[in-house]
């Protein structure tokens, strides 16, 4: 919402500077986003008077003028339609520079010399009106600099009005705030309408069919109107607040809307049939063309203003093309109504047609302000368009809105704010914004809220007004700690941060990727029989669905860095993923942690050659992470779609799958345009880790007797897995076996074909005693017998 300093000063006296006004408004909740002086983009422009004007002999649209600039009369060729004798207009002299660096020089135009240029407002940057010469008032002093004639340029405030303050979508509303802040009062001029006595029913009647959505409809009939451009002062102000000047009648409706906040509409009375206005709901499928030329298909949600035959306006949003003011309009019907806010918003949203009018109606204007606004507009039309008001005002007001009364406890207000204001102080604050305050008994105040403040309905609403006008700055912060409110830590959050610290401690860098991805990157990662969680209104297809797996995000980061010549990396991220079960609308959202290894574990270095990551690197990370979270043992199960069939594994804890790790397939890498196939990743369902992690740490006594190491090498068929061997060793190793460590794994010439050699270092230890050699030998024999039975294993070395 834009307002100008001079406009505000018509309604309130104050001596603050523009900057002070801006600061004060901001601190009262009306955030001033920008303050600027209207620019004057011209130099060497003076007041000229056309003393002679005749048609160019060869060009109909040109006039040959002689222009008096005070003591000097210059020949000027001019193309404007209103270059008539006696007009005072701005003249840009030879050498002047206008808007957009337009340079004016003496030149010949169609054979005649022109020693300057008569200007329109647009050429001077004062408004966007370009069709005519700017018309200066009769008292303008010929020869005077135009800048001096215009006086100090006005200052514009651009204010961010929050949705709860419809009253501040007007000059008067903001002036009222300034009055409250400065302790002065609002000057709202009385309006006296002199109407030609006549029975208004002869010309117009109003019938509200839908009283739920049209609370009030007021109107006036004016005749003897002459349509012409609005005067400069009005065009200038409208231009300053961002509204295009059309003609005197339309400009008046807009001007008054900006001034008092009531949207108005002027119909060309001649185009209304049947001398009546009917307010009704649209029929489903009914078509209507608004004055911007757009045709809309309506439904029953929209409200229409109709004459006796046809719809003529989309209520509260925009007038109709079929009844708008024409250049030859001479009679006008002026509408000033109150429409129900939600309905206007719904229509404006549905038709994607947000206007200055709908913006105000949907926030809630003052239902008791229609008459004032209408009369203000009527009197301006009388002044500026030569019109006459005929008969009484029409005022159809079936849903009378009365001021709300609110009882406020002074004590409660003070508790909420943490202050100790006196009843009188509060009364004074509320009175300053035009609330009537009755001081009731004891602790209670009663405030009667004018209808232009629809946001004030409850005691807390008054508390906000009190805080705002008392000044947030004046409320002292309370920094006393509240021990009684202390809360326990959230274990899931602690675990999450612990996991992040652990993985970053293993040399991984944490990334932070967008949660939304392009579908094509996600297909391979959707769990079976699921679909994407898709956005109905994405910014673009690239951010169209929610990621189904955190590995997608990490691959995005790898691809990004690979494109920038960074090859080796370890990345991880914890985040949310989501999918939809097939045929169901319910989404599944999970937190996942994923990590990825890309490129080399080690670069070429003086102590060794570069080594690429392999499967056992990612497995080591998984083992480390699980061990750190207290999950000592997990089962492996092969194959997962994201990974290579061979080089992949699920992680099974307590019989349940928690996640997986392995080598990323070439298909997926191609999708991400990653050219090497050296990527290994893991992911876990974070909550499964949390479920299974060690919750409490309890001390396990350190053995007091020496442990005994024993190395065992076994010959076995190549396709027996190390994991199953280890499992069977544990099974047969007895209670004193405390560690099994595979330290050698060999296939090749040294062993017979079809066999491999696997060597374990076993550790035995007892809590009660030192183990004897015989005991160990017995256990080893037991293990060997078991392995031989299970896998046909032979002892290779002992």
């Amino acid at each position, binding site marked *: 919402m834009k307002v100008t300093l001079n406009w505000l000063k018509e309604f309130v006296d104050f001596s603050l500077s523009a900057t002070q006004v801006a600061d004060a408004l901001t601190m009262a909740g009306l955030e001033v986003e920008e303050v600027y002086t209207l620019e004057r983009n011209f130099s060497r422009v003076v007041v000229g008077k056309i003393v002679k004007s005749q048609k160019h002999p060869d060009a109909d649209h040109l006039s040959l003028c002689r222009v008096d600039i005070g003591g000097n009369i210059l020949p000027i060729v001019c193309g404007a339609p209103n270059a008539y004798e006696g007009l005072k207009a701005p003249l840009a002299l030879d050498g002047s520079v206008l808007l957009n660096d337009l340079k004016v020089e003496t030149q010949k135009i169609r054979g005649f010399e022109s020693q300057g240029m008569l200007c329109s407002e647009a050429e001077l940057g004062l408004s966007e009106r370009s069709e005519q010469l700017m018309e200066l008032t009769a008292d303008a002093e010929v020869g005077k600099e135009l800048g001096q004639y215009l006086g100090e340029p006005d200052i514009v405030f651009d204010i961010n009005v929050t949705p709860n303050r419809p009253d501040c979508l007007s000059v008067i509303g903001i002036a009222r705030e300034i009055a409250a802040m400065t302790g002065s009062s609002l000057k709202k001029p009385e309006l006296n309408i002199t109407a030609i006595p006549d029975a208004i029913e002869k010309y117009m009647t109003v019938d509200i069919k839908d009283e739920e959505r049209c609370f009030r409809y007021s109107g006036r009939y004016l005749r003897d109107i002459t349509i012409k451009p609005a005067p400069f002062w009005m065009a200038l102000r409208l231009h300053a607040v961002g509204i295009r000047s059309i003609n005197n009648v339309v400009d008046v409706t807009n001007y008054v809307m900006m001034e008092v906040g009531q949207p108005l509409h002027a119909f060309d009375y001649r185009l209304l049939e049947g001398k009546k206005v009917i307010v009704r709901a649209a029929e489903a499928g009914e078509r209507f063309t608004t004055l911007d030329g757009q045709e809309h298909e309506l439904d029953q949600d929209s409200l229409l203003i109709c004459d006796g035959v046809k719809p003529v306006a989309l209520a509260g949003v925009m007038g109709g093309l079929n009844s708008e003011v024409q250049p030859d309009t001479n009679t006008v019907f002026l509408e000033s109504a109150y429409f129900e806010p939600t309905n206007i918003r719904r229509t404006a949203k549905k038709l994607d047609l947000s206007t200055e009018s709908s913006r105000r109606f949907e926030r809630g204007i003052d239902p008791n302000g229609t008459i004032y606004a209408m009369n203000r507009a009527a009197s301006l039309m009388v002044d500026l368009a030569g019109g006459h008001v005929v008969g009484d005002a029409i005022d159809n007001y079936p849903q009378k809105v009365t001021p709300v009364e609110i009882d406020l406890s002074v004590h409660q207000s003070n508790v909420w704010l*943490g202050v100790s204001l006196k009843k009188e102080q509060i009364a004074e604050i509320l009175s300053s914004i035009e609330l009537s305050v009755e001081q009731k008994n004891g602790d209670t105040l009663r405030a009667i809220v004018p209808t232009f403040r629809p946001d004030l309905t409850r005691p807390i609403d008054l508390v*906000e007004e009190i805080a705002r006008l008392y000044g947030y700055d004046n409320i002292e912060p309370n920094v006393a700690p509240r021990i009684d409110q202390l809360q326990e830590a959230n274990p899931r959050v602690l675990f999450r941060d612990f996991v992040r610290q652990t993985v970053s401690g293993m040399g991984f860098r944490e990334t932070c990727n967008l*949660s939304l991805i392009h579908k094509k990157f996600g297909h391979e990662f959707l769990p079976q029989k699921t679909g994407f969680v898709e956005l109905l209104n994405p910014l673009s297809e690239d951010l169209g669905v929610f990621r189904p797996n955190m590995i997608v995000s990490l691959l995005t980061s790898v691809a990004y860095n690979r494109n920038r010549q960074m090859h080796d990396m370890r990345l991880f991220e914890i985040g949310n993923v989501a999918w939809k079960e097939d045929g169901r609308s319910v989404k599944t959202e999970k937190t996942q942690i994923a990590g990825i290894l890309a490129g080399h574990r080690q670069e070429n270095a003086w102590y060794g050659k570069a080594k690429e990551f392999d499967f056992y690197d990612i497995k080591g990370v998984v083992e480390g992470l699980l061990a750190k979270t207290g999950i000592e043992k997990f089962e492996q199960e092969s194959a997962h779609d994201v990974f290579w069939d061979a080089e992949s594994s699920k992680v099974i804890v307590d019989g349940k799958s928690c996640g997986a790790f392995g080598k990323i397939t070439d298909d997926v890498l191609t999708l991400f345009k990653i050219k090497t196939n050296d990527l290994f990743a893991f992911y876990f369902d974070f909550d499964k880790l949390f479920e299974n992690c060690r919750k409490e740490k309890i001390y396990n006594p350190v053995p007091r007797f020496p442990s005994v190491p024993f190395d065992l090498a076994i010959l076995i068929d190549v396709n027996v897995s190390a994991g199953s061997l280890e499992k069977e060793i544990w099974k047969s190793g007895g209670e004193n076996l405390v560690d099994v460590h595979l330290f050698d794994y060999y296939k090749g010439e040294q062993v017979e074909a079809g066999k491999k050699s696997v060597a374990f270092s076993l550790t035995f230890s007892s809590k009660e005693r030192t183990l004897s050699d015989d005991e160990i030998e017995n256990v080893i024999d037991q293990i060997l017998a078991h392995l031989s039975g299970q896998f046909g294993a032979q002892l290779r070395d002992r």
Partner: protein
Amino acid sequence: MTENLETIISVIAETEKAFFYRLSNAATRDDLEEIRIEYLSRKGKVQSLFSLIGKVDGVDRPKIGAELNRVKKAVQDAIDEKQKSFQRTGKAIEFFDPTLPGRTVSIGSLHPLMQVMDEVKQIFVGMGFRIEEGDEIETDYHNFEALNIPKHHPSRDMQDTFYLSDEYVLRTHTSPVQIHTMEDQKPPIRMIAPGRCFRKDTPDATHSPTFHQVEGLCVDRGVSFADLKGVVLAFAQKLFGKDVKVRFRPSFFPFTEPSAEYDFSCIFCKGQGCRVCKDTGWLEISGAGMVDPAVFGFVDYDPDVYSGYAFGMGIERIAMLKYQVNDIRIFYENDLRFLKQF
């Protein structure tokens, strides 16, 4: 026959010189032992020099004697010294290059946004707040309606929302976590909800469709606006230092009343006015306010008994200030050259 004094002196010097040459080449303890025997044993080279004393004139003998004693001591000392150095290093003092690069240890790091998040979390945990979490996919009810943002209300325009269906949205703030918490627990509530949010903002230097918030809520008997100002002030000073000032400006949010925008005094110019704060001396941080009683209505809290405050903040905004990052998008690029700086 008496030898020339000079000749004998030079023989002694030659022996000494030869010794030090041998010693400098000693690489092991064995080498050293060999040299010790060669020079200092009873028939060693130094001992045998003493027999030369008899070959000079009587007057010169003390002089030669003194010289021989000096050499004997120097040899003994040098061997002892070398012995000690072997004890320190275990091997020979050959050229060792300590400037070769060390074996690489892979260094991990936490993302800068998450580091800021962690710091913010820590400050509030220190002030007795519990961290609560929630889903990023929320119902329209929890994201809007229960926060007093009805359908078809202009305040919905304040946030551009990603919709999944009529019922589900990507949460536009972490406030729905407050609703869930109040649905599940009775006051006193003292919580923060850190997390990821989504708004339909086209990415540019200051907007990202994904961003992070921390929101706080405190509900109890007698909680006041002054308490809110106190908590925000304490937070500001823990985060940016004791001299930071906080300013509250009236504003509007459907779920708080009174509502405020809060600013920190500019951390770069100490409030004097600079480019970052656009000469205002203040940095806009986020919004806060007293919980609107209408919200309590949705979670069955009695507004006549309880009051509360709520506040929010954008993690990206704070991280950009803290690290002097001027384009939000860099946080989401995950360029290693960026991540390595944190």
